[in-house]
């Protein structure tokens, strides 16, 4: 690509808005793509052909895709761009893969200020750098005002395996359940920014690429001791636990007292009438561990910036009832029911 042309295009974009003609495939489309490439910088290695050609070692690949429709797309300590990288990187990492490549699809609402697009692209660039992934292909579409909320993203990720892929069904009775960090922060932060609830300056999103953290966990113990890992995203910890209980045909026990929930998050959840167990997160994983590996994995997690508050929250029971039971703060044990649909905030 001609570097001078990119620079000219970058300058000409300053202070502008995205218009429908940026998506028509003509000159303005080309300028938009050139601008995107210029902002992404060295994390973009696409060759502007119809497909990316990648060299990978022989063996298994991990591949995943996710679309990101975030409301609001911009929040206190991040934006949809950061989430779009973290979400896909984390999906690859929890299966045991090393994330390598991402594609980037963007659906942009006409009228979006270029400054907002730039903020998203810069987040993508910085988060991709942090995660050690490269963007190898992309696509942009522009839709009419009202047909999208500012910007929607899709990322597809490819990872390679340097260890045996993890499977849910390798989890066994007696395995310990560990959370890598507090739950609920992302949901409370976004709801607070969206509705002006007053918690946004006290509670930040946990959005983070966790591949480095997960690698630390794997490398702290022998192969197989980390039985399975799942990122605790939409549906929250409760959804993850129900998913495992059903897949394993076994019961899971968790201890409410052990759950890492920040006081402000509990405060907000109580106000909204939602349970932190059902809240979405973007920087928290649930690990199922051989009991003999727990201490070493926890030490590894605690030494990483994203795992300082990792904690054991429960275990896999030796039974065949696919239920999740929680011991509450008073010592009572109750079955954690699976939600039928979204647990909507109680707003006025």
């Amino acid at each position, binding site marked *: 690509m001609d570097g001078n042309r990119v620079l000219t295009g970058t300058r000409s974009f300053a202070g502008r808005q995205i218009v429908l003609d940026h998506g028509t495939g003509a000159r303005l489309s080309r300028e938009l793509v050139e601008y995107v490439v210029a902002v992404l910088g060295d994390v973009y290695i696409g060759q502007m052909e119809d497909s990316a050609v990648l060299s990978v070692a022989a063996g298994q690949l991990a591949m995943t895709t996710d679309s990101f429709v975030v409301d609001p797309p911009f929040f206190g300590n991040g934006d949809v761009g950061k989430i779009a990288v973290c979400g896909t990187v984390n999906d690859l990492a929890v299966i045991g893969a090393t994330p390598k490549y991402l594609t980037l699809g963007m659906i942009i609402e006409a009228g979006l200020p270029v400054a907002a697009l730039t903020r998203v692209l810069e987040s993508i660039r910085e988060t991709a750098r942090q995660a050690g992934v490269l963007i190898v292909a992309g696509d942009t579409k522009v839709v009419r005002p009202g047909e999208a909320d500012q910007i929607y993203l899709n990322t597809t990720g490819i990872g390679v395996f340097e260890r045996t892929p993890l499977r849910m069904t390798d989890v066994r009775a007696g395995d310990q359940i560990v959370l890598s960090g507090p739950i609920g922060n992302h949901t409370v932060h976004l709801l607070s920014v969206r509705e002006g609830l007053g918690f946004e300056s006290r509670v930040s999103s946990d959005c983070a690429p966790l591949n480095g953290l997960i690698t630390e966990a794997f490398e702290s113990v022998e192969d197989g001791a980390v039985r399975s890992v799942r990122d605790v995203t939409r549906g929250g910890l409760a959804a993850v636990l129900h998913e495992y209980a059903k897949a394993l045909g076994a019961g899971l026990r968790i201890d409410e007292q052990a759950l890492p929930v920040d006081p402000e998050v509990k405060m907000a959840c109580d*106000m909204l009438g939602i349970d932190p167990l059902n809240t979405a997160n973007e920087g928290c994983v649930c690990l199922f561990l051989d009991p003999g590996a727990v201490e070493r994995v926890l030490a590894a997690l605690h030494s990483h910036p994203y795992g300082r508050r990792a904690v054991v929250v429960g275990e896999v029971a030796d039974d065949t009832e696919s239920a999740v039971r929680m011991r509450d703060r008073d010592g009572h044990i109750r079955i954690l029911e699976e939600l039928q649909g979204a647990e909507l905030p109680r707003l006025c």
Partner: protein
Amino acid sequence: MGKVAVLTNDLQYDLVNKNEERIRAIEEATPSFSRFLNEIRRRGHHVLHLQLVNLPDDPIAERYEGRLPAQRGTQGVEILPVFLDESDILVEKNKDSGFFETDLHERLQSLGVDTVIVTGMQGQICVQTTAADAFFRGYNVWVPSDCVVSARDKDRIRALDWLDGYCATVAESDEILRTLDVEGGLPRKVFVTP
């Protein structure tokens, strides 16, 4: 002790007139609520009305049967006169908490206020969020239970329990006035983080 200010939430025509339940709840609260505001003014304290102004391009703002209430320049956005005095201060807000993207904190600081008495409608969310936001910013927060309004009383009671448990001293308005008179201010309750 620093100064005291009362913050009211959403005491506006459109918002009060949304339904019969709200109208009735406001009517029931008005005698003690307006008396409390008058007593606060008489003692030289400030009353600030947090006035919700819905922005036409806000997709989150609640519509009433397709109509956006409380828009700037309409009669529906105005504060009910029974709660208003010419000495009062109006602060426009666009979301639930009165502090969210407003200059409320700066105004309170410039007035030397360290204690806020949070009131208004509805108890759940607007009173709760403004009180929580004030608490996080270091204010001593009080809530007069008879000056908090919800369409459904169970929501009001639940909100008051929440406020009392997390961030505010909840008391009847008469008790707050008595405490002000006797102690010259309102003592700060200590909240212990679990």
